Structures are given as C-alpha cells and as structure tokens.
C-alpha cells in the first residue's frame, strides 16, 4: 500500500529524512513515533502527496486518502457541520450524514458553530469527523488525540479503532495510549529514518 524507497527530504540545511525505506501492506496500522520535529508529519504529508521527496520515491496505492491534520485545517467561514459536509459532496442531502459523523465524535451540539467558536479539542473532533466521513482506504492521523479532554479520549479512540478496521492507518504520535490502541506496529525515528521499535 505505502512504499518509501530511499526517500530523502530536507528543510533548508536540516536533513529530516535520509534514504528512508518503509513498506506498509494494505490493512496494517502503523504508528510513527519520535521527538517533536523529527519528521513524522512530513512522512504523512509525503504519503498524502502534499510533499515531494528531494530524492527517492513514494508510492501509495490508495483510492482515497483521509487525513486528520494536526492543525485541524477547518474552513473558518463554515460551521462544523458544513466543514464535514464539504468532503461528503456538499449538498443539502449529505448534511444529515455530516451531522451523524459529528454526533459520533460527541459534537452534535456544536455542529452549527464556526471553528472560531469551538475549543481546540472540539476543532480536533471536527477534523477527525471529517476524515472518518470521507472514508477511503488509507487513514492518516496526525496526533489525533492531542487536544482532547481526558474523558473524550477513550470514546474517540474506540471510534477510531472501529473505523480503522480494514483500512491502512499511518499514525504520527507521541502518545503511548494512542499507539497501543491504534497501531499493530510501531516505527521509531532514528537518524533520518523510521525503524521498528
């Protein structure tokens, strides 16, 4: 499903990935761990096709890729429900589905609020609802529980685990609980590449 062959990527003088090889078969859930700024988000961005490697090749055999971004990336002028509906076809008919996904992440009451009216944790849940609503065979999760309240974490983790079933998941995280709950394999950052922990 995901193949990184000799991938190199630098930001200015800083080499983040050095000839990284990674092969993830379809349906497998993998967590990328490592210190902040080591390149976990970069690997997700490469897998999503948002970055190009300086050298090497990235091949992703997925029909649809859903990405729960670390920074939420919600359209500020659209309500939570409209943000989710955007990836469902953005019609009046799909709005009920958007609300359904928001209800699943415990955001039924904030569905008609704008992102600026939501807390960081609520925005994160909208971001997750959008990714889950989009579906797809590859799910990219960038620190999905980072801003969630402790009492929300378990329910959202269960939801993610249920909806990740049968899909390939690439998870960037610092969180042990996330790793243990969602990933079958863990790759740890070491000197420009990710190796089995």
């Amino acid at each position: 499903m995901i193949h990184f062959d000799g991938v190199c990527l630098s930001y200015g003088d800083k080499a983040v990935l050095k000839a990284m090889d990674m092969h993830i078969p379809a349906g497998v859930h993998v967590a990328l761990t490592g210190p902040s700024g080591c390149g976990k988000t970069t690997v997700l961005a490469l897998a999503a096709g948002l970055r190009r490697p300086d050298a090497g090749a990235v091949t992703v055999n997925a029909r649809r890729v859903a990405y729960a971004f670390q920074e939420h990336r919600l359209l500020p002028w659209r309500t939570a429900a409209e943000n989710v509906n955007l990836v469902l076809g953005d019609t009046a008919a799909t709005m009920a589905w958007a609300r359904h996904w928001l209800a699943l992440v415990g955001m039924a009451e904030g569905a008609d609020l704008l992102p600026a009216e939501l807390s960081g944790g609520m925005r994160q849940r909208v971001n997750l609802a959008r990714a889950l609503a989009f579906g797809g065979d590859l799910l990219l999760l960038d620190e999905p529980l980072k801003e969630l309240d402790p009492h929300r974490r378990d329910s959202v983790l269960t939801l993610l685990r249920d909806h990740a079933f049968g899909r390939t998941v690439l998870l960037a995280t610092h969180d042990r609980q996330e790793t243990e709950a969602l990933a079958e394999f863990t790759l740890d950052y070491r000197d420009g590449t990710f190796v089995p922990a």
Partner: protein
Amino acid sequence: MRRSGTAAKSLGALAFWLGVWAVLSVLIGRPLLLPAPWTVAERLLRLAGTAAFWHITAVSLGRILLGAALGVLAGVVTAVATNRYRFLNAVLSPLLSVIRATPVASFILLALIWVGRDILPCLIVFLMVLPVVWGNVSAGVAATDGQLLEMARVYRLSRWQIARRVYGPSVGPYLLSACHTSLGLAWKSGVAAEVLTMPAFSIGRQLYESKLYMEMTDLFAWTAMVVMCSIALEKLFTALIRRLGRRRSMGGQGQ
C-alpha cells in the same frame, strides 16, 4: 440607537458645511463665482423636473457602471491568471504598473485618438478600475491559507469547489474593498473623461458647457448630481453586500 446617532452626526456635519457655503456665498456676493446653496438647490430641482436631465444622468451612469463592471471582471480574471501562471505575471505586471501610474488625462487624450468619444469614458473607467481590482484580488489570492488548499487537495475538492469554498471567502473581502474604492474612482475618472471628450448625453458635457457659458449654478447643480449619484451607489453597494452577507449566514449550507 447608534445608527440614528451616526445619522444625526452626518446630518449635522452636512448642515455645518452647507452653512459655511451659504456664509461664503453671501460674503463674496457674486453668484458668478460662488452661487448660494439655495440657488443651486432650486436649479437642481428645476433640472430634475425635465426628462433630459434623467436621460443624461442615466446614460452617464450606464457608461460608468459598464466600464467599472468590465474593469472588475477583467481585474479578477487577470489576478487569477497572474497568480496561476508566473510568466503571465512577469508579462502583465509592468503593463499594469504603467496603467496605474499614468495620469488619467494622458489616457483620455491618447484614447481620444484611438476610439470613439462615446465609448471613451467607459474605456477610461475600465482602465482605472482594472489595476485596483487586479492588485487587491492578487493580494487576496496570495493570502489564501496554503494549508486549507492542501486540505482541499487531499479531500479531492473540485476546482469549482476550491474556487467557491476556499478562494471565494478568502478573496471576497479584498474584492469588496477594491469595488468600494473603484466606485469613487470610476465616477471621478468617468466624468473627467466626459468633460474632455464631450460625448452626447453626458454629465461631463453639461459640466463643460456650464463652465463655457459661465452658468455656475448649473455647474454646481450637475456637480451635486454627480456627488449624490456617487453616494447613492456607494450606499447601494454597501447595502447589497450587507444583504448578501446576511443571506449567507442565514442560508448556512447554501448551494
């Protein structure tokens, strides 16, 4: 309450300046130099009672609005194209900078040789509005959040959806600001072009002839008409934008 307070302040300011005008006209005592405001108002009312007055105003207004609308359209298209294609930006940027820096009078005199006098004011307004809209919309496109565009790419939004849902709301305030500036600019440059080219049925021609025959009251009356049209258009535009904004927020989903 606040709106009525603002209106009262505006009316107060208007009354003050009309008072200054009245006092000055009485002090000077020569209507040929400065007619009194009541004389101008009387003349304006008398002119407004004729069909020709409204015909001339409508034709001038149409010409100016057509030029402004074409300028806005071309400005938006140029901004999108120059942001999309770098070579086009390299080719068009100097030209647009030249247009922006060239005095209106030079354009009018040059264009008078190339095009007919009836369409010249329209062309001048177009040339004045285009760089303003282009500059503002370009800034808006450049300021559009790259992370939102990446999100749109990942979720495979169509080009139309990206234009409507991401660029539209992001660039909208820049375009509105450009339109607001352009409205005033369009009136000034359009009427100036009419004064110099004197097309049939134009406010500019009336202004020129008033000056030619030393009809200062007419000159002031027509100028007052230009000012009132400009203010009315600005108010209309602001009301339209407010209404569109309200419809958007009420419609929410809005297809």
